[in-house]
């Protein structure tokens, strides 16, 4: 096996709610290698954010992990105590979020929040921490970093707040950065800046990145390999190039088709009919079958296994009888 930093194996998780038991994650599997950018793509509610939170050990009270493990550097995150987790969080694995301004505490200055994070994982005094904070802000190309340190989060733009979050996330040179839709709330010109920054930092620090997004465009720009998630399972997995150039899973095909492109102009967009299933009572077999135009009898009964359909390209679909992985 190659050098793997994170390995999610057979992760199946339910959530208890007032309406009933939500069967959210259904046997999720993927691996992230050292020094790569791995994209987890899917539409809202597909379970990609839940997965990322589980990797951070942020398990909600109502979650029931039915099976599976999450190995970070060979150790199962799900079995760690809160204090073990706190030694990893922000130090070995860091995370940035979709809503950067909301991720910063509104009533403390940027300076104080950065110092708290730096002093938490590093044995330094306050002045050194402040110095480090300034250096970090320069590292993330923050314009006017001295002023930003003295600002409150609401005085920052979305792009600037995300740079602060990134600066805090890389303060202890983590091995893995989880980026949960970090550019979704940003304008397209600012998104481009942040994507470029993440790429640069990833190369400079040699860290791995788990990039979670719904945007196939962002994935195509940034990620080396991806996993496409649908309704709590990874349905396509492998190199970004192969999956997007030559999609084999009907869901991936549908997604690629649904993106409005110049060549579709004047023609109806080939959309995926229906909507995402309800987790209270998800479809049996392949969870995509009610929306799949190629659905067969077997799809309604049995969940398909991951099979290899090409070089570095795997899908979970009964249409493909390739060799099992």
């Amino acid at each position, binding site marked *: 096996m190659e050098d793997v930093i994170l390995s999610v194996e057979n992760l199946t998780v339910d959530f208890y709610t007032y309406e009933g038991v939500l069967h959210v994650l259904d046997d999720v599997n993927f691996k992230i290698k050292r020094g790569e950018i791995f994209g987890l793509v899917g*539409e*809202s509610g597909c379970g990609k954010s839940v997965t990322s939170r589980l990797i951070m050990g942020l398990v909600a009270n109502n979650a029931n992990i039915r099976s599976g493990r999450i190995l970070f550097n060979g150790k199962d995150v799900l079995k760690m105590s809160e204090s073990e987790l706190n030694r990893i969080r922000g130090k070995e694995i860091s995370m940035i979020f979709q809503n950067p301004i909301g991720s910063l505490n509104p009533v403390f200055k940027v300076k104080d929040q950065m110092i708290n994070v730096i002093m938490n994982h590093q044995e330094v005094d306050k002045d050194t921490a402040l110095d480090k904070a300034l250096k970090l802000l320069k590292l993330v190309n923050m*314009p006017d970093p001295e002023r930003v340190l003295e600002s409150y989060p609401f005085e920052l*733009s979305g*792009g*600037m707040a995300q740079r602060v979050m990134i600066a805090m996330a890389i303060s202890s040179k983590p091995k893995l950065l989880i980026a949960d839709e970090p550019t979704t709330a940003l*304008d*397209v*010109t*600012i*998104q*481009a*800046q942040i*994507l*470029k920054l993440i*790429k640069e930092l990833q190369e400079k620090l040699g860290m791995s990145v788990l990039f979670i997004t*719904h*945007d*196939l*465009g*962002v*994935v*195509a*720009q*940034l990620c080396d390999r991806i996993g496409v998630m649908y309704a709590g399972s990874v349905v396509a997995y492998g190199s*970004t*190039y192969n999956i*997007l*150039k030559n999609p084999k899973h009907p869901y991936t095909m*549908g*997604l*690629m*088709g*649904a*993106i*409005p*492109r*110049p060549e*579709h*102009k004047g023609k*109806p*967009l*080939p*959309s*995926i*009919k229906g*909507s*995402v299933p309800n987790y209270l009572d998800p479809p049996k077999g392949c969870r995509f079958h009610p929306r799949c135009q190629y659905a067969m009898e077997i799809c309604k009964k049995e969940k398909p296994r991951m099979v290899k359909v090409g070089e570095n390209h795997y899908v979970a679909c009964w249409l493909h009888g390739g060799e099992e992985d």
Partner: protein
Amino acid sequence: MLPAGSMGVRKISHPLLLVRNLKKYFPIKAGVMQKVVGYVKAVDGVSFDVYRSETFGVVGESGSGKTTMGLSILRLIEPTEGEIIFDAPSEVMMEIKKLETKERLSDRDKKRLEELKKRYDLMKKDKKEMRSIRRKMQIVFQDPYTSFNPRMNMRDNIGVILKTHYPELSGKDIDERVLELLEKCGLAKRHLRRFPHQLSGGELQRASIARALALNPEFIVMDEPTSALDVSVQAQILDLMQELQKDMKLTYLFISHDLSVVHYISDKIAVMYLGNIVELGTTEQVFEEMKHPYTKALMESIPYPDPDKKGTIKPLYGTIPSPRNPPPGCKFHTRCPYAKDVCKKLAPPLVDVGDGHLVACWKYVEGAYK
């Protein structure tokens, strides 16, 4: 450059809406007496024409004023200044356009133009007149969850509009009409008695469109109607919108930050930056012969879902300045790689660079870019 005629078949059509020098300023107050000390110029003098049965796309980032502009056109917020000429007979529209483009206006022409505009200008209508005009102009909002009353089911949410405008309708008539509208938008009878929280985002946006259609409008402002939706659902809504447009001869003002969506759906496009239109033209003109540096930068920032284009995005420098305190001259000069002295001092006019393709950039004003 290709002549406009060769770019697909131009529909022979007349304008439905003329917007002239539309402004919306929000006052900034300060001091003990809350005196007005300045203005946020959210929309700072925009002019354009929307033709019948076409989709006019407006694209811009946050703070560009695109949503404020959409609301101002419907007078859902009161514009500070400007003319909104809506739904005049085609002869009148053509006459206005002719008079406007005339080189030298005689006093009689001026009077005639004023009179024509006055008669159809929404800014001159009182509340009662506006209410009946609103039947013809509707809006669909970005967030379908907050645009419905959460305590009413879909039948009542839509029916209440019918009842307001046509109090003579019986309950049964309304039932039938609402069902017809829902079905037209791809929903079914079972959705009638459901409450907003029981519908998915896509279903709710379909219901929003059904509600907008309730009064048989001619013109609908689509304010980021698919921004809150997933790609697969977005495609469904875009398809529905186009289908309805064909069937009902609707005219759309489509506001979005997503260039690919605007490109896909629009016939004409206006690119906005900090309250101004910086480029305006047909979709082909704007996307294939883009002139303004901001439009170019926007295009280069879009990540295309094509792995062959990996690493091709070119970020634009800097952030959008605050609309409270916009830079002088061309508002884009702080981020523009081509900015020269003139750009820092004077705001560029919108000039025609050929076939009605308008650009506000000193580069395209002869002799000015030094």
